[in-house]
């Protein structure tokens, strides 16, 4: 059994998901979107991934990145570990793919801003 707070809309229903005879019994939701959300949260919760990656020669030392779609929650830690090993070089354009198909999830990691190179002094 799993209890969760629905985040589809501001109502914030407390939803309970139970497995009975191999079938999901979902209670507490007040709309079909809540039902769908609870089902996904129970079977395979997913989250967007956002973090920063080291960048060399840029106006800042880190560049923010974002996943192009949601990634299974259980794989977030491994994705982060991979991203923390990386180093990219400025300039980077907004939307540049930093990692393609990260850990076989089918999701790309892209730069979420541009990072101009630091002017030579």
């Amino acid at each position, binding site marked *: 059994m799993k209890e969760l707070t629905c985040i589809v809309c501001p109502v*914030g229903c407390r939803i309970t998901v139970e497995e009975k005879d191999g079938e999901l019994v979902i209670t507490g939701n007040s709309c079909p979107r809540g039902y769908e959300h609870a089902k996904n949260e129970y079977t395979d919760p997913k989250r967007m991934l956002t973090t920063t990656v080291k960048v060399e020669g840029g106006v800042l030392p880190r560049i*923010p990145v974002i996943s192009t779609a949601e990634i299974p929650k259980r794989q977030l830690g491994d994705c982060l570990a991979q991203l923390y090993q990386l180093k990219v070089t400025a300039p980077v354009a907004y939307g540049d793919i930093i990692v393609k198909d990260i850990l076989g999830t089918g999701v790309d990691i892209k730069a*979420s*801003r541009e990072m101009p190179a630091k002017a030579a002094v």
Partner: protein
Amino acid sequence: MKEIKTDITVIGGGPAGLAAAVEAKKQGAGKVLIIERDFELGGVLQQCIHDGFGLHRFGRRMSGSEYAQIFIDEVNELGIDVVTDTMVLEVTPEKELYACNSTDGMMHISSGAIILAMGCRERTAGQILLLGGRPSGVMTAGSVQRYINMEGYLPGKKAVILGSGDIGLIMARRMTLEGIEVEGVYEVMPNPGGLTRNIVQCLEDFDIPLHLSTTVAHVHGNSVLEGVTVAKIDENRKVLHETERFIPCDLLVLAVGLIPENELSKGAGIALDPKTKGPVVDQNFMTSVPGIFAAGNVSAVFDLVDYVSMSGEIAARGAVRYVNGTLPSGEGKDVKIAGNVNFVIPQKVIDDPEGGNMFFMRVKHPDGRSKISAAGGEIAGKSVHQRVAPPEMLACEVRGIQDAELEISVGAVG
């Protein structure tokens, strides 16, 4: 002193200023200038690397930096002038503006209209009653966010967060992902300060406890933070000493509210609203000083950036009409509020059928299914909300405002 003349000068290159400058240019304004204090445009959005921005406007989940990038690209394409690393020192009631930076020195800028978009500031340790020393390691959530997300520093190893506003919640998750142990989030009020979706995604996802009606009673450490004492408080906010508990930590993150930044507005003699702590504005977001407009968090603290951009665009349309001499003038009448409304912005309406018609409000207390009503006008679009709560701003469009007599109310419906 360098002399500059513009049609519209925008103070601040964050979300409000960017949207205002882009809209002003699109409406046909001649020379539009953005003055930004930081080294680049984007404002606080550049440190908001998490997603959830732009759901209303762009219909997809973007990070703050992405949201900013779209506007920055537009600013560049439209040929809007930008000066960065530049501090505005003074705005006069006659719309004369003084600014300085290290390459141009002092600048005197005369503008057809000015749009204030300075945003807001975080409440600091000095502004809340925080007993104990002032060691390093006590900082606002926004500072921690900038250190981690932009400058690449980890400001601590073990953190306690005071305040459950959205920035505090977002930082609880962010610090956890970066390897900082977050002991818990402590909230003085009996209700969480942030959006439900942030409680779920930032705290529950990472098993970070949220302690309501609890505060930091003492800060320990002389030069470096050694820990904090937390304690429950009663309904009069009195510390219940028997509940005190010492938590060793090297980082105390303050997420205790935002205050619109209006030092320049005060200097210009602009009337401020004690509730919003921002300028009193009419439906075109024009302040009490003709030709000076306010947009975004300088006028009131918004929860969604989409609304901030929207207010910038409304202000820009008003500013362009002001410069063209087509904006009606008038004292305006106060927008009255009733029922479960704490404040509404704009606070005034003038007789201007072509003016802005968006109104933003916060409720006084949480309630179930509620309806926004307008006497002396007609609500267009969504008026019924399944749930209302003070952290979530309500927005509505009011059409056909009758001779500027408007009362907006929110009340529970069955």
